[in-house]
């Protein structure tokens, strides 16, 4: 590929991702409304889709305020971290065999490394706000994300063992005959739970639990800086969905009547909807309950899964 092609892929991926993240605002609000027996945004444009534009405009034109008691530069830096780290993670996602920004041979490790950087935005944002609610949210967020990252990584290692590669392209190709969801169902469940915790969405939105902590770590944020957290969250959902699809549901693979990118998009979208459905249906566990489930149930389960996968893999290879 030429340099120009690479540039186009990068720009194209960036463009599509940012639009999806913005579009998800509308999707989520409409879907939530549907499940909650109400209408949702339906005034601006057909089916209310222009709410995205209205929301963005509102965020842009709001006063970009830094509280006088906040640590100014860290306060400004924090929201950029979340968007930056999530966008970097997309580098290794194979949308189709051709459209991938960089098929690194440490692909999964890169993804794990980048998503763990996301915790910085919560901690820094919460700390720099110099607000008690933000601080509590940041503390909760830090421990939650660190705990869940451990077995998020472990749950993926089973797939890596079966493929024998960290490259996501290889992993997708290894699923030509059978999706890994069949061989690694436990890993899928653990990864998805960890993914929800990682994106701190309901039911695991503990760092920002609105009935307890007002808005948690981003209580003091407004305008586009808040918008960055917002976009970061939707990008995070998209990322976790995309990785789930790549690792367990055969990525772009599918019957030939649809192009590979369409398969990838459809599968990812299904998981995004599942994220939203979760938000519509489940209550939030308490912070210590979440940690307990993580360390006492999910971590041993992930290790067990890894051991069994390894044993079986060794047996088969003889």
């Amino acid at each position, binding site marked *: 590929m030429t340099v120009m092609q690479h540039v186009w892929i990068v720009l194209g991926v960036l463009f599509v991702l940012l639009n999806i993240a913005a579009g998800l605002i509308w999707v989520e609000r409409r879907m939530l409304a549907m499940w909650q027996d109400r209408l949702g945004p339906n005034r601006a444009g057909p089916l209310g889709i222009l709410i995205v534009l209205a929301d963005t405009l509102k965020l842009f034109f709001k006063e970009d305020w830094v509280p006088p008691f906040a640590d100014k530069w860290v306060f400004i830096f924090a929201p950029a971290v979340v968007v930056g780290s999530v966008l970097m993670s997309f580098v290794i996602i194979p949308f189709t065999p051709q459209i991938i920004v960089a098929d690194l041979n440490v692909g999964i490790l890169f993804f794990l490394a980048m998503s763990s950087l996301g915790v910085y935005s919560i901690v820094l944002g919460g700390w720099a706000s110099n607000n*008690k609610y933000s601080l509590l949210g940041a503390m909760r967020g830090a421990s939650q994300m660190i705990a869940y990252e451990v077995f998020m990584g472990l749950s993926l290692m089973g797939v890596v063992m079966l493929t024998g590669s960290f490259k996501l392209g290889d992993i997708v190709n290894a699923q030509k005959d059978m999706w890994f969801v069949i061989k690694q169902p436990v890993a899928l469940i653990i990864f998805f739970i960890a993914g929800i915790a990682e994106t701190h969405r*309901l039911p695991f*939105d503990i760092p920002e639990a609105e*009935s307890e*902590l007002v808005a948690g770590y981003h209580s003091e944020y407004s305008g586009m800086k808040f918008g960055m957290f917002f976009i970061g969250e939707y990008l995070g959902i998209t990322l976790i969905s995309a990785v789930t699809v790549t690792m367990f549901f055969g990525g772009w693979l599918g019957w030939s009547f649809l192009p590979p990118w369409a398969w990838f998009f459809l599968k990812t979208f299904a998981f995004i909807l599942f994220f939203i459905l979760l938000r*519509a249906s489940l*209550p*939030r566990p*308490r912070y210590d309950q979440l940690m307990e489930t993580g360390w006492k149930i999910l971590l041993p389960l992930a290790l067990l899964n890894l051991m069994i996968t390894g044993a079986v893999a060794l047996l088969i290879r003889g």
Partner: protein
Amino acid sequence: MSDAFAILDLLQQNFGADTFIQQSTVDDIPTLWLPKEKIISVTTYLKTNIPQPFNLLYDLCGMDERDRSGKEKLPVKDFTVIYHLFSFERNSFIRLKVGLQGEYPSLPSITGVFKNANWYEREVYDMFGIKFEGHPHLQRILMPLTWQGHPLRKEHPARATEIGPYRLVNETIDREQDALQFKPEEWGMQRESDDADFMFLNIGPQHPGTHGVLRIVLQLDGEDIVDAVPEIGFHHRGAEKMGERQSWHTYIPYTDRIDYLGGVMNNLAYLLAVEKMAGITVPDRVKVIRVMLCELFRISSHLVWFGTFAQDVGQLSPVFYMFTDREKVFDIIEAVCGGRMHPNWFRIGGVAQDLPKGWDALVRDFVEYFPKKIKEYTNMVIRNSLFKGRTKGIGIYTLEEAIEWGVTGPGLRACGYEWDFRKKQPYSGYEMFDFDIPTAQHGDCFDRAVVRVEELWQSLRIVKQCLENMPEGSYKADHHLTTPPLKKYTMQDIETLITHFLNVSWGPVIPAGEAMSCIEATKGANSYYLVSDGNTSSYRTRIRTPSFPHMQMLPFVSKGYTVADLLSILGSVDFVLADIDR
């Protein structure tokens, strides 16, 4: 009721015959005047030393007697502090009155006897300037700390127009802001312990989890609650003071707004007391109509609680479904009363109009529709394991603690005590209905929720019985004090014309006397203690609301739990700020 008066002999034997002066009241509650030196020993005696003790401090209020006409017949002085004690085992009240002389008198505090006396005494101090010696923290509770004067004293103006224009200048803002600053030392709190600095977290007055303008200051060690100080009064509207200005009839709409989720149930509590004094007995049809409306409001109130409780623990959707169903209840209420949340529909001696044509079809539709919804919500919320995880074993209090703190209603029944005023002291014809009192055993957030959900079923049962057995007859009592007065004989003789004219223009004159009503409202026991000195408006209107003691208990219940649990506890208590602050 002869049983109720047996306690008087016992008291006179123990404290001497000349200690007490007995007063007779229309509500048949034994009423005793006693000197202030004796109040601690008498309350202690009633609480601990007799069989079937009076273990609940039901209400404590003050009264300014200086302008009361006809007071010569009573042993009153300038002010009175009135204690209502209740004995569950005797199923009866006793009313103790302490007369006080002087501009700003004082008397001993009974906080050492009853824990829940704390806030009540603060309220009396706030409203009358009466000091309680030995009170741990006698500070204003409903009015701002910077308030001048004590509102329920008769010389205090009742309307803004009597005070002069209000100006908000910078100094005022600074002064008010300073007054709101929380100083832990004032509450006897440490800023640090041996191994930790405490964080003081200010929740509210504006906070998504407090269901209204409530402020709670938490003393936190990490996320664990060491202590909490609820600050109330932001929703105070002077309802009791307004009772002294409004006529007996025109006060009814104000009662709607006390427990604003309870609607006409508040009217009922007020009117039962008025009707006792006026000597009105209402026809059966009125009773059944009132019961039906009250139970519909109980359903509607419990639905709001259910939805918001689920939301407090992070479940977003149920509140939308339940508000939709609440609309269905409101459709019936609207068809019957014309209003929705505050219909102001009960009248002295009856209700405003007869039931409209076709009411039965509306009610029948709802009675058939609602059961499957309750089942659905039980599955959705109560049986959800995350919900159980958030509520089971959280916010526990025992039955003894509940009574000590003055808990009534579902919060008491969740401790395993089958107590419901609708059954034990039936009013407005509840004895005619067939229903159960749901209870639970553990007294935690989950049990309080289960009891309320079960009450939805029971209320539905009562509504169904109203539907099937609505008696024929008049919707108003045939009594000259009913409002608006009956017009039957108005055009025939001058006497009834004059009565009618006065009743409409001034409002009815309720004979002098005192009466307290007691109903099982949506959140617990709700009472109106009314004193008439034979005038067109009440001399003293005291509203005993269930949420007030429930909120007072919050620090006790929430100690040792986390911030997240606090929200479960707040949700499970089911309070309404207007019901606390009045």
